[in-house]
């Protein structure tokens, strides 16, 4: 079995080619740095099975960030390389190609985005390019699948070559210059409407108003879609389900089983948020409260990702993000973190230094609430008024800014400048957007349901053995005395380690005032990340930095909680 690795510059479409070759789904987007880790898949060629690996993009074989290090690692292991190249930008892409060839690897060249090259007036002589490089060259349009069949067919043609000797950087560019003059012709292109929009959205004067408009529209769309899905689909669904659950409750009769599956009946009725049974709260929270917002958020995110807007946003926020010890690219992990902190923290791999990655990961864990939690905040604080929801997010925003400023001062290390390619705007493809959203929904359900069930089970267990009382007593001085919350809120903070959405739900039966709810839900974001985020922080930062980050979070939660109590409760 051969190991075939997909390599190429960032944002040339490697992940799309990978999906086409293996049938496996991986996230692909229109911005450099989407893939930060490798994915493995299988492909059959004749009777033989091959392992295909999708590597992060890199401009050269000298890595400059963690994602590129992964790419290099994959390169070393490869038996054969499919070098995916952006046909609209052949010259620059060939640098990596030559480096790969100098290392005596077997290579097939996929000239991707062949359609776009044609539209932009770039013509490439395939025969001549094959002759100059001495490797098979196949034009492809990975998005539509065009050329993928040929690509597979020509993998067999690959043979070892001895022709290209290692050379230095300037010789490489000279060679590339020769090849380009020989194979490529570019017809001059007039500026189009797309170029005009592209420039308007990246220039400061027009870019900032546009960015604000885009973000507000996006937020409005997410809440609108989420609410609509709940009131017209998920809630009616659960109204139909209630008689079944009630029937089951009666059939089970009072006892441990009823407690476990249905939970506590409130005024003889099931309360989907407060009952805490596996078949009531355990399925209502993920499906009827969180899932609608997950669907809304990820479909909007997919449109943002595929349009190519995110690198422009990164440019606009660069100056501000430098104050937080990162550069503009830091907005992308933050954006992804709004869906789920785990992929957000992973995306920080595209930042160059340890300092930048540490700050990005810590800020996400401390002040970027994930969609599962947001949905619950909307659901629980919404009835009291939008003002309360605003208070939660305003506080988190302040925490983000202040922590960023502080961490930038505290942390040693470099914060290099931004160096980011801006992809052309592309129209997001409906099917691709839907597929990607579906993939993330499936991922959410797979991650969320087991932990939610575990959480519900644990809550029941902890109440039965009296652990909750005991723990509440221990933390009473902090929770009650300092934060001004009922001491039972301790359990919610404990469960928050498993699932933050469930934890928010647990606050409801405590009979708190709206202001207390604001404090509790805000603290639920700050104090500690959930178990998944914790694991990814451990993996990305190492144990020492993770402990540092955690200590920072606990300290911040303590201070912010105290201050909020003073300001919001006035006592």
């Amino acid at each position, binding site marked *: 079995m051969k190991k075939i690795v997909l390599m190429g510059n960032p944002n040339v479409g490697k992940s799309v080619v990978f999906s086409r070759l293996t049938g496996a789904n991986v996230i692909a987007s229109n911005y450099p740095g989407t893939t930060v880790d490798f994915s493995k898949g299988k492909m059959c060629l004749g009777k033989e099975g091959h392992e295909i690996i999708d590597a992060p993009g890199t*401009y050269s074989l000298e890595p400059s960030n963690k994602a590129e290090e992964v790419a290099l690692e994959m390169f070393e292991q490869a038996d054969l390389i499919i070098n995916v190249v952006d046909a*609209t930008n052949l010259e*620059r892409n060939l640098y990596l190609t030559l480096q790969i060839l100098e290392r005596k690897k077997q290579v097939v060249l996929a000239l991707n985005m062949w359609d776009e090259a044609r539209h932009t007036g770039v013509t490439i002589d395939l025969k001549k390019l094959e002759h100059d490089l001495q490797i098979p060259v196949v034009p492809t349009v990975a998005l539509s699948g065009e050329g993928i069949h040929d690509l597979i067919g020509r993998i067999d043609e690959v043979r070892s070559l001895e022709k290209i000797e290692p050379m230095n950087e300037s010789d490489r560019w000279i060679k590339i210059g020769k090849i380009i003059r020989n194979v490529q012709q570019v017809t001059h292109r007039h500026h189009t409407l797309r170029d005009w929009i592209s420039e308007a959205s*990246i220039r400061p004067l027009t870019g900032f108003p546009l960015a604000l408009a885009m973000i507000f529209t996006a937020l409005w769309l997410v809440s609108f879609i989420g609410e609509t899905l709940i009131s017209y689909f998920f809630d009616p669904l659960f109204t139909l389900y209630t008689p079944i659950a009630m029937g089951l409750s009666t059939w089970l009769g009072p006892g441990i089983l009823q407690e476990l599956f249905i939970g506590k009946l409130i005024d003889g009725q099931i309360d989907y948020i407060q009952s805490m049974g596996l078949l009531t709260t355990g399925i209502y929270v993920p499906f009827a409260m969180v899932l609608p917002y997950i669907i809304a958020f990820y479909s909007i995110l997919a449109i943002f990702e595929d349009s190519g807007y995110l690198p422009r946003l990164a440019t606009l926020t*660069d*100056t501000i993000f430098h104050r937080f010890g990162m550069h503009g690219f830091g907005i992308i992990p933050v954006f992804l973190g709004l869906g789920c902190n785990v992929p957000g923290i992973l995306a920080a791999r595209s930042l160059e230094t340890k300092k930048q990655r540490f700050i990005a990961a810590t800020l996400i864990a401390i002040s970027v609430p994930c969609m599962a939690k947001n949905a619950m905040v909307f659901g629980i604080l919404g009835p009291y008024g939008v003002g309360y929801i605003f208070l939660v997010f305003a506080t988190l925003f302040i925490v983000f800014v202040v922590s960023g400023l502080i961490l930038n001062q505290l942390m040693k290390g470099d914060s290099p*400048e931004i*160096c980011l*390619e*801006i992809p052309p705007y592309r129209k997001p493809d409906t099917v691709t957007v839907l597929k990607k959203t579906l993939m993330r929904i499936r991922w959410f359900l797979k991650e969320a349901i087991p932990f939610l069930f575990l959480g519900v089970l644990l809550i029941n267990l902890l109440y039965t053995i009296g652990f909750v009382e005991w723990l509440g007593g221990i933390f009473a001085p902090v929770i009650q005395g300092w934060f001004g919350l009922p001491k039972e809120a301790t359990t919610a903070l404990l469960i928050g380690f498993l699932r933050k959405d469930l934890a928010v739900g647990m606050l409801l039966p405590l009979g708190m005032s709206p202001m207390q709810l604001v404090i509790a839900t805000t603290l639920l974001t700050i104090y500690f990340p959930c178990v998944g985020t914790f694991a990814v922080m451990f993996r990305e930062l190492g144990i020492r930095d993770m402990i540092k980050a955690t200590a920072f979070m606990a300290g911040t939660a303590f201070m912010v909680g105290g201050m909020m109590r003073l300001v919001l409760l006035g006592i």
Partner: protein
Amino acid sequence: MIFISTIARLLGIPKGCIMEQPITSLETGTTAVILRLEGGHWFQNKMRGIGIREQKTIRLVAKHPFNGPVVVEVDNREMTIGRRMAEHIITRIPK
């Protein structure tokens, strides 16, 4: 280097006469040719890797305030680079 264009303007020297200047002192929208990259080996490699090389035509698309990044276009491709890096890209406006 940054103030060359300002000084030149004060002295009344027309724009085309300035032999070389960093991309950051060009006016937004100006097209120029890259003469050389100043700075360490690592920086030069990085710039060439993303397509910013000697002899290439470069256009300044945007310059962000408060010493923010600049956006340049080379080979029909836009790129955002930090101000300090951009100051090391020396260009000349063709006559």
